[in-house]
């Protein structure tokens, strides 16, 4: 992976009537990386993708693909001239064309022999060589997904865009197709921007993640950075389902309802803060005079997820091993048990 920039977006703004779909988004995609645009529905991730593709025109801002300005206040390059390959949410395979013709669709100005060899190569790559004469309606969801990928990759685009590419697949199929697709994209070292609302998928697929909310870019970074060093409360809440516990800065750490958390924070004493706690950060023991009650237990197979209620009414979640089964209603002593630093936000 080189560190050259494949896509550069600068202060993108897009409004629809009264809603600000994309508000001052700036981000870079490095050549050969997979960037995941992640956020809840309506956060502007799909609009950002469609701005890069050229299906929408930004109200202001600049987009550069490779060396070329494709959108700014005077330039607008239409999608067909941007050299992109797009995989759509519902695959958008042409129902009137065979698998072969779908993949060959974007290969213009090539001889028949060239087309045959490229399409063959693409179908081989996605493992559908024997399906070339079939029509889209004769394929399963996963097969359609792979044809859509082959069709987008065939013209050797400089940039691959994927709009919720796995959302129309069944859950069990999704994991399998996802692995396959990531392997292919990495083999050909494609530069990819892909949109998802599923944090697990973003963490799995993305070399880097961009978390969006209400048209804003909240944070961009590697999956580890996003997870462990969330810069905003929204990111911490959206990634890893955090609970937020109130605390106060004291000497030597943060005083909370479940005791002193020994983490030094560069804030004045007595500042009110909130600490993002994920279920793996919390542990507890049975204790008749403990600080919380077990109100629910969810068996998740590999582990148990407990829901605890502190005396203040605050809810915390905690993972324990799958063999440790404790009764609902038991009083326990909860405490923070982690060796990494926690995300702190001023309240």
């Amino acid at each position, binding site marked *: 992976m080189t560190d050259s920039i494949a896509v550069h977006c600068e202060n993108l703004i897009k409004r629809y009537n009264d809603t600000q779909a994309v508000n001052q988004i700036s981000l870079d995609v490095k050549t050969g990386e997979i960037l995941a645009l992640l956020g809840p529905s309506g956060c502007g991730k799909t609009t950002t993708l469609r701005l890069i593709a050229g299906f929408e025109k930004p109200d202001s801002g600049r987009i550069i693909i490779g060396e070329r300005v494709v959108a700014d206040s005077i330039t607008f390059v239409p*999608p*067909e001239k941007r050299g992109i390959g797009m995989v759509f949410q*519902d695959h958008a*395979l*042409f129902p009137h064309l065979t698998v072969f013709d779908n993949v060959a669709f974007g290969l213009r100005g090539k001889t028949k022999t060239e087309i045959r060899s490229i399409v063959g190569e693409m179908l081989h790559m996605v493992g559908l060589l024997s399906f070339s004469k079939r029509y889209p309606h004769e394929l399963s969801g996963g097969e359609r997904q792979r044809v859509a990928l082959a069709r987008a990759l065939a013209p050797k685009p400089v940039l691959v865009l994927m709009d919720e590419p796995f959302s129309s697949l069944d859950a069990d199929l999704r994991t399998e197709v996802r692995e396959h697709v990531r392997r292919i994209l990495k083999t050909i070292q494609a530069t990819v921007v892909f949109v998802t609302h599923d944090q697990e998928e973003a963490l799995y697929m993305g070399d880097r993640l961009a978390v969006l909310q209400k048209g804003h870019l909240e944070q961009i970074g590697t999956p580890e950075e996003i997870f462990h060093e969330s810069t905003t409360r929204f990111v911490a809440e959206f990634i890893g389902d955090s609970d937020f516990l109130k605390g106060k800065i004291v000497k030597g750490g943060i005083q909370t309802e479940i005791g002193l958390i020994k983490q030094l924070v560069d804030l004045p004493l007595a500042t009110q803060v909130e600490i993002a706690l994920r279920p793996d950060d919390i542990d507890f023991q049975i204790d008749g005079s403990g600080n919380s009650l077990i109100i629910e237990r969810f068996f998740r197979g590999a582990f148990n997820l407990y829901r605890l209620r502190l005396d203040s009414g605050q809810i915390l979640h905690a993972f324990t091993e799958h063999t440790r089964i404790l009764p609902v209603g038991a009083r326990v002593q909860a405490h923070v048990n982690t060796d990494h630093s926690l995300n702190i936000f001023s309240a």
Partner: protein
Amino acid sequence: MTPILWGFSILVVIAILLPITYLIIRVMGAGSDAWQGLLRPQMFETIARTAWLAIAVTTVSAFIAVPIAWLTVRTDLPFRKMWAILTPLPLVIPSYVGGYLFASAFGPRGLLQQLLETLFGVTRLPEIYGFPGAMLVLTLLSYPYILLSTRAALSKLDPSLEEASRSLGYGNWSTFWRVTLPLLRPALGAGSLLVALYVLRDFGVVAIMRYSTFTRAIYVSYTSFDRSQAALLSLVVVLVTLVFLFIETRTLSRTKYFQIGTGQARPPALIQLGYWRLPALLFCVTVVFASLILPSGLLIYWLIRGLRAGEVIPSLGLIAWNSISASAIGAIVILLAAIPVVILIVRRPNKATLLLHRITYSTFALPGVVIALALVFFGANHAPWLYQTFPMLLLAYGILFLPQAMGAVRTTLLQISPNVEEAARSLGRHPVQVFFSVTLPLLKSGLIAGASLVFLTIMKELPATLILAPIGFKTLATSIWSAVSEAFFAQAAAPALLIVLMSSLPMAYFILNEKNVE
């Protein structure tokens, strides 16, 4: 329950098929002399004329309808919504009313010629009678069939298909030819078939424009007492119609393959017409003017002229009453006949009921002239007591419009889950009680819709009414016809306006509903 339904359905099938079957058998058994008629040059000419007219009207209609569908659904055409509402409206003009208005304006000694004569001394206009007039009027009246089907397909089309083509390097124009148009092909095919059948069945326009396609040739032979020729022509029409129906079932079964995908997630961005805006607008203005504004204007003109001359027939009330009562009785009887047959088809789907379905639908494409003629033959030879009576006319309406009534009932019945009926059975009701306490109340809205549709179609029907109505029984349609055939254009205006207004009601309802859905 089932045997009773079957017994009833078989009676219906017999009533529907008997006249046509009788006609076919009689022609077939008429001996080689009659068969010589098939080889007469007149026969070939009729076939060629009909085919030529059908092909021309369908082609020109497609060239009018597809651009309008695309412009009103996908572009920033000025007043897009208004054009979307106005362009299907010519459907409410019955063909003989359209033919009458155009003939009155552009025919010899018509309004245009009179006007040009006072202004410039022009005494002759290019001939409108024959092919040009028939083609022009039929196209203007029937292009909405293609428009509605392609427009529906276009607005259901997944916009990401076109976006995929754009992302693969094709511009707007090549995307239209390579992706959009191929995807519209089934809808275009279905619409074109409707237009071709409309031409094949049409009596009003070809009769007024004096262009002898099958329906006019049959009518002329019949009125000149050359009945064997009329029967022979009818037989050929039946065969041609069967070919069309075969094509239709083939197209329908192929369209299934085109329906994949999850439907559209976002409305597609409107295509900027740029400097094509003006030509596009001009095109819509021309089509709406010729197909809607001009006929309405002419109708109002003739009405005013008729009122001034005191020509509005005093018996209009009686005629309207005849029309309304005949249509109402027809609608109720046909609907009652349709219900048991539809229940059998929908609730007991098997090979036998599928055949029943096919048979009962098969008559929908037949021209009214042919049905009427078959009934005349049958009545004259085997049921003289029925000949030129009201029940005979009702039977003709039944044969012509039962498919329409069945369609309406079937759509509603398919929406009622059989579980609801089974629930009532499990609560201890007898099937007959279930029908009256559960099925019928749920069917009510569909029945009302079906009945009003049949009511209006009967009211507009001309050829069968003309041939079979009891002597002295004049309806709105037949009084327009007789006024027009004697060139009393002003006399035809009032009944024509009544019919157009009546047929506008379901169209208005349809438009309002379509807007609600949006």
